[in-house]
């Protein structure tokens, strides 16, 4: 199995190199068996049973340059396999720079992404399992 993973990782390395090529937000849930390698990075993943994974990748614009300008607010809520809330606001470039400098606008966006609620959970009676993130990268 290790040899298989190494081979898959090597193929991935040949295909894509080491850096993320896109701005990516992922939320994934697996129940069963999974043996995969990421094509955005050089990482591999082996799951047997139940696993949940949430991550973001912010690429550089070019080699040896800063990460792309980004102002983003995310609200992800998950309970089980089917009850998933996936809400994102993403702005890039000049718009991101303007938004990141204005706290009121950021608060408005956060409120909109959370559906007017104070937190990320979709219903008051439901259990809270929230993840919020604000990225301001220049």
């Amino acid at each position, binding site marked *: 199995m290790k040899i298989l993973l190494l081979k898959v990782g090597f193929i991935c390395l040949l295909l894509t190199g080491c850096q993320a090529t896109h*701005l990516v937000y992922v939320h994934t849930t697996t129940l069963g068996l999974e043996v995969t390698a990421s094509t955005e990075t050089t990482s591999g993943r082996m799951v047997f049973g139940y696993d949940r994974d949430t991550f973001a990748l912010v690429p550089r614009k070019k080699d040896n340059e800063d990460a792309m300008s980004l102002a983003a607010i995310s609200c992800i809520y998950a309970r089980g396999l089917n009850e*998933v809330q996936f809400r994102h606001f993403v*702005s890039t470039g000049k718009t991101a720079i303007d938004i990141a400098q204005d706290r009121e606008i950021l608060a408005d966006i956060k409120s909109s992404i959370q559906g007017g609620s104070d937190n990320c959970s979709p219903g008051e009676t439901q259990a809270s399992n929230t993840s919020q993130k604000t990225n301001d990268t220049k």
Partner: protein
Amino acid sequence: MNLSNENNNKCLAAVFIPALLTLLLTTLVTGCAINDKGFTQLRYFENATSYMTKQNTWGGFISTHSSDRGFTLGYAERIKVYPKMTNNAQLTLDQFLQQTDNSDFVESSTKEMDLENLQPFAWFEKSQGITLHANSLKIGLSAGVEVRNVLRLLPDFEGVFIINRDPDGSIKAGVQGSLQQQ
């Protein structure tokens, strides 16, 4: 030690071979699909700034699109959101948020859309069965149930993108090239 390994291999074979045969039989009974052709249900939607496709497939499903390229044996559900890339620079952020909230997806005719050359900005996948992945995010194999929610933008994208998917399955999305500064 060798005897133990042989027993393990026999146990694995006893579980996986019938499972594989059952899935292959299911494929033969239910049929198979390649992209939008074959035994599949594909519906098209659009709102003010985005297109959306919803696809359900039972049996074997081969996708050649970069977002979900691979093969699924079992059940596959794919929802993809594509940008129209409208550039209404007169819109303020508040107006854009309001527009996104008010602009529900409406089902459209298949012939009105050609999304072959577009890359989705976001997609939602559910696979039950065996899946071979060779897509823009991962390569490998999975068996069982897999749910994946993805937002993926090009590094040269300049603008604003919103995607809201709620637990009841409703989806709202909005894209703008630029916004008026408030």
